[in-house]
């Protein structure tokens, strides 16, 4: 056996191993989707989307849950993204390499690994009690913002790093200030990457139940929140509640609600991919 045939065999072997690895993930995801869809799809209709929760599974709906989820998403975006992106820009574009900056870097990366329930406890003490927001949408959104901030900061920095230094140098050479360079050149060029991070962060926030339960999100809310100070529930809590009920019909409801949650996540991801592709076509260096 020559060296090159051996290498070719290795190459093929790795290729099959790669396919196998990919299939593991896909098969599980596929099984999950098929199971959920066969159970829950038939349950989704207009009434299900517009009804209040009820003790009777067949009359129960997810109106307050998805309305709460949308509120939380909107508020979390409004709070977390300006903060996260600004922090990322500062760390990447403005700070000089120093012990302090690498210390910050490590800690932000660590924050991304803190269990979400810890953020819930923090939110309960700081927002709900000290700042007296009560178990409101605002307190929940602030808690989730803290939760996703590390993701936003880290991905913003990665996106900024991917912009070639020559773009910045060109801008500086023409006499632009740092802010002008960042705002007019670097940020637009990294828009796609930042957006990916932002959507990843939102997708994480949309699936969280534990920290919101700690903050005081409820399981039965018979009204659609009309301001950020209102009490609320979200889809994951409604799903969690339904799966723990004794009657099997509630499991069907839970499956249907999971489909809606997946739908919202896919929609978010779809929008992100669309915007990113559109943006990338425009950038020509």
């Amino acid at each position: 056996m020559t060296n090159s045939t051996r290498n070719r065999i290795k190459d093929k072997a790795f290729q099959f191993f790669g396919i196998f690895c990919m299939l593991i993930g896909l098969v599980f995801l596929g099984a999950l989707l098929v199971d959920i869809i066969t159970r829950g799809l038939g349950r989704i209709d207009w009434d299900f989307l517009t009804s209040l929760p009820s003790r009777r599974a067949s009359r129960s709906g997810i109106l307050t849950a998805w309305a709460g989820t949308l509120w939380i998403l909107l508020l979390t975006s409004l709070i977390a993204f300006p903060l996260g992106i600004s922090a990322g820009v500062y760390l990447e574009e403005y700070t000089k390499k120093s012990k302090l900056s690498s210390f910050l870097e490590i800690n932000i990366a660590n924050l991304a690994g803190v269990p979400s329930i810890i953020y819930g406890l923090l939110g309960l003490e700081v927002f709900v009690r000290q700042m007296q927001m009560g178990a409101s949408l605002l307190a929940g959104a602030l808690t989730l913002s803290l939760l996703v901030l590390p993701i936003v900061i880290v991905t913003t920095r990665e996106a900024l790093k991917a912009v070639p230094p020559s773009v910045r140098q060109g801008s500086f050479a023409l006499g632009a200030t740092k802010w002008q360079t960042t705002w007019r050149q670097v940020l637009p060029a990294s828009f796609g990457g930042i957006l990916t991070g932002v959507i990843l962060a939102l997708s994480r926030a949309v699936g969280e139940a534990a920290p919101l339960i700690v903050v005081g999100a409820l399981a039965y809310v018979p009204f659609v929140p009309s301001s950020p100070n209102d009490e609320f529930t979200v889809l994951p809590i409604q799903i969690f509640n339904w799966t723990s009920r004794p009657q099997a019909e509630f499991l069907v409801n839970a499956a249907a609600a999971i489909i809606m949650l997946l739908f919202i996540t896919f929609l978010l991801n779809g929008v992100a991919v669309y915007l990113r592709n559109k943006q990338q076509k425009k950038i020509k260096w």
Partner: protein
Amino acid sequence: MKTNTSVLTQLKATLLVCGTLFLASCGGNSSESGGTGSDLTGSIQIDGSSTVFPITEAVAEEFRAEAPDVKVTVGVSGTGGGFKKFVRGEIDINNSSRSIKEEEAKQAQENNISYLELSVTYDGLTVVVHPENNWATSMTVEELKKIWEPAAQGKIKRWNQIRPEWPNEEIHLFGAGVESGTYDYFTEAVVGKSHASRGDYTASEDDNVLVQGVSTDKNGLGFFGYAYYLENKDKLKAITIDDQNDANGKGAIMPSVETVKNGTYAPLSRPLFIYVNSKAAARPEVVKFINFYLDNASELSSEVGYIPLPAEELQKQKQKFNDFVTGLKK
């Protein structure tokens, strides 16, 4: 590069889309209200046990027809989690699957919170095994204690250690998680000390997980609320319980609506409670809600799988509450 303006346009567009979705979501609630005569307003905040949740949810749902402008919300922080908020005066009513603990009562006192306990329904903690388990059909409380007490940890591992004639096979235990009121009640009733048991068993706050566990394990043994047994009768076998006290029913007793109601399924039949904050009880909407709760508890608790209190007992609870309210006014 001329991308900077379009970035902003796109951001604006995204926000606009979000905003529109949002407004669409807000539109839904306006048509619901109006209708019946009650002009009560305000909000009632309830939290606590997930075991009591289904019945409180049912009451809150029906109460909307009675007083459409009162916003009743119900959370599921667990009995203990609910009491933490209750003793700080953060909620009006706590759903509770056990009585208030001494230290919780002390905290309430420190915060100047007084309250009233009302029992609203019964539940029968059911001990179950796999349907193919043909040996264990009945157990004494003494035997249950032998299995669950802290000293059993790592020692009682086989069925024949409980009764010699039972098979020499491993016993696999499933039970409520230590944070739940159900766990506190079971340990109190069986081991004799609240919150004390062996730790080497499969614990879950979600009773469906326990159902799943026992129904797929021939050597499994577990306990949970009667409603979960009732819904999964085809997958589980309930064990009759003998408390060796002939005063409340001779011999081993099967959990059923009848035996829980008349108290012969001892010691594992338990009342479920709501705790009402006295400040809340001074508000007309809360008074109306509690009265509505007690008036409908019987019908609604059977609907969600619990065992209703006898009518005279509910009447007593109502009397107790109304005395409490009159007492507040003096």
